[in-house]
């Protein structure tokens, strides 16, 4: 499915004015002010130098690959499990009723509280991190899938019934395409959650990825590196969300767009 490209707007620079002013003020305060020799803060120019240092020596790339690898693996599991669970719960009122209490009891467990358990099972490394990401990121997928199935246009199900479609055809040709736009929104939410959880777990315990790199920089008194990584993480999150938004518009441009664009933020 190809979509016509949307109207291209000229880039608006105005929203950048506030951050630029803040950075300038920060630079001036650090260079001119009494905090010049701070061990907790660094001037923007030092952060920039630090950033290029860890880009050049490869540590940033390695850490980024580790974090994104874990996030992606966890996200894939979250989407697979969340989608299947959401489908089952959406299709069967009985199973939904039977599992409701259990799910509502497990779901609020904070992801970070799972670290000790995951560590006992998997030790350090990817599997521990991915299992926690999968646990946390599957809920939005499950819940939005279940709601989307519940909200399916009854007329479309009647079309399937009148044509005597097989159950698998009905799922593949009616249900999944019908819920796809909303599942994609769930995927975007889950991707954000996955990144947050990956870094949280790395900061808390797992000695790999961007989170661990930040902790190392902090413990070795390199505030400029801590800040450089922090800003990099922000940029990564921003970039991922916008890439997914772009993909969403390309994939689901067939409709009136209402169901896509309304909850697209």
């Amino acid at each position, binding site marked *: *499915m190809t979509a016509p490209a949307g109207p291209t707007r000229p880039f608006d620079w105005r929203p950048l004015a506030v951050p630029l002013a803040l950075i300038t003020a920060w630079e001036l305060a650090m260079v001119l002010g009494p905090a010049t020799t701070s061990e907790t803060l660094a001037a923007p120019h030092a952060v920039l130098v630090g950033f290029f240092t860890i880009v050049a020596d490869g540590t940033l790339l390695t850490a980024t690959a580790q974090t994104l690898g874990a996030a992606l693996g966890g996200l894939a599991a979250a989407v697979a499990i969340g989608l299947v669970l959401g489908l089952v719960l959406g299709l069967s009122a009985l199973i939904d009723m039977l599992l409701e209490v259990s799910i509502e009891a497990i779901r609020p467990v904070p992801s970070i509280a799972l670290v000790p358990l995951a560590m006992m099972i998997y030790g350090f490394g990817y599997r521990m991190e991915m299992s926690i990401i999968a646990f946390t990121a599957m809920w939005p997928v499950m819940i939005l899938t279940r709601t989307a199935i519940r909200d399916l*246009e009854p*007329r*479309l199900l*009647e*079309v399937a*019934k*009148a*044509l*005597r*479609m097989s159950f698998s*055809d009905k799922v593949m*040709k*009616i249900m999944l*395409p*019908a819920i*796809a736009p909303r599942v994609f929104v769930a995927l975007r939410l889950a991707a954000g959650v996955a990144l947050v959880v990956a870094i949280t777990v790395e900061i808390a315990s797992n000695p790999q990825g961007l989170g661990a790199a930040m902790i190392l920089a902090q413990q070795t008194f390199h505030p400029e590196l801590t800040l450089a990584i922090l800003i990099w993480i922000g940029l990564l999150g921003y970039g991922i969300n916008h890439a997914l938004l772009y993909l969403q518009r390309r994939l*689901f441009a*067939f*409709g*009136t767009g209402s169901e896509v664009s309304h909850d697209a933020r």
Partner: protein
Amino acid sequence: MTQIGQTAQMRLEGVSLSYGAKLVLSDINLDIARGEIVSVVGPSGCGKTTSLRVLAGLVSPSGGRIVYEGTPLSGPRRDIAIVFQDYGKALLPWRTAYQNISLALETMGTDKSERPDRIHALLKLIGLGNHADKFPSQMSGGMQQRLQIARALAQEPSVLLMDEPFGALDAMTRQTLQDELLTLSTKTGATIYFVTHDLEEAVYLSDRVVGLLPNPGRVGRIFDVNLPRPRDQLTTRESPEFLHLRHELYQFVKGAEQ
């Protein structure tokens, strides 16, 4: 027009239907001949749509039965096609016009190599030849309803059930589609069960018009339409017979509303 029991392709035998405690259809008896065009009129809420859904096999009657081609109807059949009132909801928004028609052929197991020709022929037949790759959201209401009709025709139905198919369209589009439907009916020989609230439309299209009475929905009167075919939007509608039938139907529905 119909001889009971002999030429009837579809028979409603004492059909009644309740939703919970509410009796929606009560003891409906009707024979529909092969190739006949039967319209159903009546005040809003009298059970027109429900009668169509029963004929479609989408709901089972609470009492009585439908006999189709000599055997009791037990559920939806592919040779009975439905055109829903709300075309915007009945089409798959993520599929193009071509792909929406393809849905019917895929489901019926039509050979993959045969599909493109059949789909293009249907698109052409229904006047959408140049719009194969448009999504429903890119089409007007009239085009969307044409597409839904094309999808129904892809089933090569013996019976076409239509629920106020032109109700949401403007007058000109409606008249064009009425004539196209009459042409289709001659070409395909399909039986047409046509629900409408437009009394002139009912007379213009039909061999017979069934007038339903409400609460509970039941057959009040059956009007035979002996207007010559082919029909014409001007001369048919101006003929005394047409005006007389319109008058009678109007009085019937007016009386039924009270």
